[in-house]
């Protein structure tokens, strides 16, 4: 009888364990992850491309979406975003990712409470790699077929208004944006600002003027001509031409009375408006359109003053503060002295070993806490920002190079300013939390430097005015003026400092000095960056530049305590000769 009870009892316990475990286990949430990488499916390695992820689920999902992107070497770039999907709902998240190795797939994971609840793999493949992308906003996905036969590997991406990026960095891989059809009501302010900002900092925009296109007010300041909408025909052209009224000082292509195209600049970008429609059936069959496309795509793109070489000026490590080292040495000496005292006095007495052990443990605890604290405090960042004024746009492009300092291992987390996007300058492991705008990385795994780009509002204009034989520098600004500024022209500098730059400065021809001597600007970080920028300016076509320290302390990245670490900020503005 006892044996029967014993057997049944164990059976019941086992069953209750099995069913209890089954009841306790969460039901597998039917989660669907859909992802769309690149513009029109194309990616350009090393450039930002959008990654749209749509998560839909039949039950509520709260967790974290992770996009693990293979980086150079064996590194990974992990982008994360908080996820909260209502039952039978969906959430769309757009990451701006940098892909360097298209042969390895992206991994999309959803984690909740630290455990993975869904996973999807997104293969990329070299067949989706392009050298550049021509993005066309058009109803009909046709008209750019000629790109397949052209030199290089430029590829077409036909977009709708909804697919327009909301951040300018997402256009990083784009060579040219073409606006053919535009429903102004469907373009959000963030999308408008992203496109305008991208053009201002050096992008290329083509607008096709035709009767159906209504130019929205936000786009008009970019255009070099005003399309009137009425069409006309030239006997030598098979396509009708819209009438364009060019602005003053722009480049007119074709007949002056009925231009074929008008080219102008917006900031550092290039904007062209075409009077003919290369997407229309007649335009697509006109062979002359190819020459226009080629001329536009071959137009030189402005180079940024800031280059990754500036990251070399940043420290890669930093030692412990001298006070910390002295404190550690003093604690060590104190331990030895106290231990000697205790050993001599109580070492031989009964229970003396307990006292000696206590001394060792107390000092071990204190020194471990001190050393761990010093290690944490040693983690920091160093950054240098170059603010490039974009003429006539009331904007400036800020390129910041950030060095992650983890001298004793571990990782450091820094927070990005709202419009900034970070790109690693090497391999390693980097974590980008898009929700918190936080970047976590370590110098230990080879990841030590980042490039952070953003566009800020800055209304500053610098002009060199020839007034009755003397050259004057006139600087107008709605914001702060640069400090310790200098003028650069043809490997010569003209010091305008020290101190804040005045609104009008008469330039004395005798004060120009050659910049061949290193260390002429000083030895601190800002001075070293300044000299590096001078070397860079020598290779750029604009010959007259204003350079100075930016007085307003705005850092692209900050540590959790709000500190910017070691920080230098330089302003560069082209000077217009008048």
């Amino acid at each position, binding site marked *: 009888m006892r044996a029967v009870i014993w057997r049944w009892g164990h059976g019941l316990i086992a069953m209750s364990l099995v069913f209890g475990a089954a009841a306790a286990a969460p039901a597998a949430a039917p989660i669907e992850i859909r992802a769309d990488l690149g513009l029109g499916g194309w990616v350009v390695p090393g450039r930002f491309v959008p990654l749209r992820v749509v998560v839909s689920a039949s039950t509520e999902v709260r967790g974290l979406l992770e996009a693990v992107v293979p980086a150079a070497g064996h590194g990974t770039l992990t982008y994360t975003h908080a996820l909260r999907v209502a039952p039978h709902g969906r959430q769309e998240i757009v990451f701006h990712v940098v892909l360097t190795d298209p042969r390895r797939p992206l991994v999309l994971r959803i984690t909740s409470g630290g455990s993975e609840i869904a996973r999807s793999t997104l293969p990329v493949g070299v067949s989706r790699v392009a050298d550049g992308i021509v993005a066309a906003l058009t109803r009909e996905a046709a008209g750019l077929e000629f790109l397949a036969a052209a030199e290089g590997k430029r590829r077409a991406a036909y977009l709708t208004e909804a697919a327009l990026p909301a951040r300018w960095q997402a256009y990083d891989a784009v060579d040219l944006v073409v606006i053919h059809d535009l429903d102004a009501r469907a373009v959000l302010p963030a999308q408008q600002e992203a496109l305008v900002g991208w053009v201002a900092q050096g992008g290329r925009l083509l607008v096709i003027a035709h009767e159906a296109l209504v130019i929205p007010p936000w786009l008009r300041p970019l255009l070099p001509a005003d399309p009137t909408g009425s069409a006309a025909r030239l006997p030598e052209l098979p396509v009708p031409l819209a009438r364009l009224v060019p602005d003053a000082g722009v480049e007119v292509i074709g007949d002056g009375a009925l231009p074929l195209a008008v080219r102008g600049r917006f900031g550092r970008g290039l904007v062209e408006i075409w009077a003919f429609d290369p997407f229309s059936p007649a335009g697509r069959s006109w062979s002359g359109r190819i020459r226009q496309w080629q001329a536009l795509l071959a137009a030189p793109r402005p180079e940024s003053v800031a280059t990754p070489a500036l990251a070399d000026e940043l420290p890669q490590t930093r030692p412990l503060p001298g006070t910390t080292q002295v404190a550690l040495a003093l604690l060590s000496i104190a331990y*030895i002295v106290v231990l000697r005292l205790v*050993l001599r006095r109580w*070492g*031989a007495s009964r229970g003396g070993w307990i006292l000696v052990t206590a001394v*060792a*443990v107390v000092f071990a605890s204190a*020194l471990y806490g001190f050393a*761990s604290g010093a290690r944490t405090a040693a983690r920091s960042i160093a950054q240098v920002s170059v603010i490039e004024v974009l003429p006539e746009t009331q904007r400036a492009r800020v390129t910041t190079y950030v060095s992650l300092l983890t001298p004793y291992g*571990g990782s450091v987390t820094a927070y990005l300013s709202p419009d900034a996007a970070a790109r690693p300058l090497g391999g390693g492991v980097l974590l980008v939390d898009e929700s918190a705008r936080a970047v976590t990385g370590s110098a*230990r795994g080879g990841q030590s430097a980042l490039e952070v780009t953003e566009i800020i509002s800055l209304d500053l204009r610098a002009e060199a005015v020839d007034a009755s034989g003397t050259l004057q520098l006139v600087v107008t600004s709605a914001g702060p003026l640069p400090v310790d500024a200098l003028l650069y022209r043809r490997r010569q500098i003209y010091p305008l400092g020290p101190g804040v730059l005045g609104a009008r400065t008469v330039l004395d021809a005798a004060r120009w000095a050659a910049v061949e001597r290193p260390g002429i600007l000083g030895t601190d970080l800002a001075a070293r960056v300044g000299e590096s920028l001078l070397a860079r300016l020598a290779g750029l076509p604009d010959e007259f530049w204003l350079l100075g320290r930016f007085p307003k302390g705005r850092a692209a990245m900050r540590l959790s305590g709000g500190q910017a670490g070691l920080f230098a900020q330089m302003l560069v503005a082209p000077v217009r000769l008048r």
Partner: protein
Amino acid sequence: MIALNAVARRDLRLRLAGGKAVTMVTVYLLVLAILALLSLPPDLGRLDDLRQEGLLLAFLVVATVLAIYLTSAAACGEIAVEGEKSVVDLAASPFPPGVVARGKVLTSAVFAAWLLLLGLPFSVIVAGIRGESLFAVLRAAAVTVPVAAAIGGIGALFGAVFESDFARSFVHWLTLLAAIVGAAALPRPWNLLSPVRLVILAVRDGLRADVLLVTALYALLSLAAGAAIARHVARIRATYQR
């Protein structure tokens, strides 16, 4: 600890409080302190990925070698601690040979553990600043103590066998070199017999089966050394009784 063995109790008290013993411990701690402070410059840890861990490892290897040397040198009489009786002296005492042998081996084991404990504040400086786990320090200690006990036991045996100071020191150093340097030069897996290699593996890979096996071998060796000491004490007594 103290209730276990009278010989060990007396030896350990002398090694804790004797003038020469305190000086020995002070020198040991100064060496470790200098090593710990020398590991502070961050560039040392940036040469390659392994250097962060490597600095703690190097520190633990030095601490191990020092602990083994000091334990065995004190046991064989190369470093004479005032008042400490050698195996030959204890042969004339009323303690049974087994108590003398166990006492000498126990003294070596506890003294080695003691030295590692006293060096702990400097180990944790290196571990703390480099972000390493304190378990690495514990693992190193776990393999060092049996090794030091074994070599200390052998040292105590040398103290009884060799009357000449020179011969004793010569054989002691020969043993240390054979164990630390010679064994490390052996092909794998025999190089694990070297305490240095043993500590490296214990710190890097944890207490693996082969590490535990070699540690157990050293523990057995300390027992064998104890048996040899007991036998030698018995032989001395038999000689004098005749």
